[in-house]
């Protein structure tokens, strides 16, 4: 430890704990205690109005893990994230790179391309129903004019594809704004140096832009992945999980189980099972992040 660091440590004293502890206590009270009670419910038989009537061991888990609906919703969520996050990252990065060139009019483009981040996802989902309708929906009609006829709203694949397109529309702006912020703080002499070495614009982007934007972009990708795994509003508003339950994401299914059918035991078991699956994915990400945060 350097002398400065040691002095800081002493300097902090009780003060640093006074700053940190309220937030820590809040998170423990409002996140970790709820999680503990979710774990408890997952082993319980919960009856609405009576509360926990008894414990059933792993019966809820068995129910969940042997249900096709659970695994189907996991698959839908996985497909959703596997497509939206990379596409949003690539589109967001390219758009940010182009806007960052600072061509006349860039500000206007920045404003427009960033705007979807501030829309209501549920409203966008409902709007999507009309956009993808085969009866005069703007997207369906435009695509069918160039020979792409997709039964958007009547098939599982079409419904999921429509939800994914809307998600890309809504969330590319998030990656865009974050990467743009990172790119715009690159000092211009770095560009000068890169131009001398590089043969093409493409090379400058590849060698300078991507490496410098990566630390920030990786946080954005992590946040998008986390949010994507929890996706609810857009697909739910667009298809209500239908036809049948074919486009139900995990969050939508868990929501219906717990809130509509008040099956708290099964809903909690579902949640814990999902959390375990997701944690495995996120831990890999967090290892990467840890280096960045130090």
């Amino acid at each position, binding site marked *: 430890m350097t002398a400065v660091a040691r002095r800081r440590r002493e300097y902090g004293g009780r003060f640093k704990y006074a700053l*940190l502890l309220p937030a820590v206590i809040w*998170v423990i009270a409002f*996140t970790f205690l709820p999680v503990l*009670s979710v774990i408890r419910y997952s082993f319980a038989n919960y009856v609405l109005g009576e509360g926990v009537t008894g414990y059933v061991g792993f019966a809820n888990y068995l129910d969940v893990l042997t249900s096709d609906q659970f695994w189907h919703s996991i698959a839908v969520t996985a497909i959703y994230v596997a497509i939206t996050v990379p596409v949003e990252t690539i589109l967001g990065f390219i758009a940010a790179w182009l806007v960052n060139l600072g061509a006349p009019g860039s500000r206007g483009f920045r404003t427009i391309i960033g705007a979807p981040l501030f829309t209501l996802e549920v409203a966008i989902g*409902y709007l999507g129903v009309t956009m993808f309708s085969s009866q005069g929906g703007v997207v369906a009609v435009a695509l069918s004019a160039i020979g792409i006829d997709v039964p958007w709203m009547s098939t599982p694949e079409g419904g999921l594809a429509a939800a994914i397109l809307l998600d890309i529309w809504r969330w590319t702006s998030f990656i865009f704004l974050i990467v743009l912020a990172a790119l715009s703080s*690159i000092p211009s002499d770095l560009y000068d140096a890169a131009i001398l070495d590089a043969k093409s614009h493409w090379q400058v982007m590849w060698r300078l832009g991507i490496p410098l934007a990566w630390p920030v972009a990786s946080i954005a990708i992590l946040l998008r992945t986390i949010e994507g795994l929890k996706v609810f509003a857009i697909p739910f508003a667009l298809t209500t999980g239908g036809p049948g339950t074919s486009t139900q994401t995990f969050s939508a299914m868990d929501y219906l189980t717990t809130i509509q059918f008040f099956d708290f035991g099964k809903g909690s078991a579902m949640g814990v099972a999902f959390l375990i699956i997701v944690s495995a994915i996120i831990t890999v990400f967090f290892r990467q992040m840890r280096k960045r945060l130090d």
Partner: protein
Amino acid sequence: MINVLWLRSSLLSRAIVYLLLIAAAVFTLIPFLWAMVNSIKTSTDTFQPGAVIPFVNFQPTLDSWREVLSDPQATNAFISSVVVSLGTTIFALILGVPAAYALARFRFPIGGADITLWFLSQRVLPPAVVLVPFYLLLVNLGLIDTWTGLIFCYSTFNLAFAVVIMRDIFRDVSSEIEDAAKVEGATPWQVFWKISLPLSMDGLVVTSVLIFAFSWNEALFASALTSQSATTFAALVLASRSTRGVDFNVASVNTLIGIVPPVILYFFVQRYLARGLSFGAVKG
């Protein structure tokens, strides 16, 4: 600022850049334009192929706008959303910013990066998972269907943003300025409140906008934890399907009205976005 790359570009590559930017802008604008057109259609015209241009293809009407604007439920929900989003922003900052500062400036027995990740880890919880305990918790506290209940709830989720983003911002503030203040005899609190915080204002503004936008957008908890008096706009929009089937024209109006408050904020803070959102990672 014009990038050197642009200045060195040929006419052809400039044209390509503009083409791509225009394509992106069109892609972005289509749903907005579609919402505008649909908001002045009748429900019969909504699913009418070819009804695209007002007055030419269909007779526009302001009925849907009137319906939403004169609906007291919609007005209440709108007010709820503003109050809850603002309340969340303030409360999450009050909790998160000091913690972020502590993690940026001081050493703890557990590493600052680990504590930061711990804060972030609670965002991994799927919302539906914590819905039940939150529901029961708010019932016990008597906060079901109240603004306070929602604010508590949303602050919990958004605390992670406040901590992660602001920690990076504070790490960018030069410690030399702080050291100078200490030499002058400033207390740690004064250093934080009078020096570091004002120097981090741009980051603070951006964090606020993000938290506001996320709270504004949230529909799942809002519809589960409120029933009437505290229903937010997002929850109202979500619920419109079950109450009377989706009225797609009203949904279009809602799309447009729903974007207004966060976008107003966005316009105000655009110039701050550059620094705040970079998480301080790229240093010039």
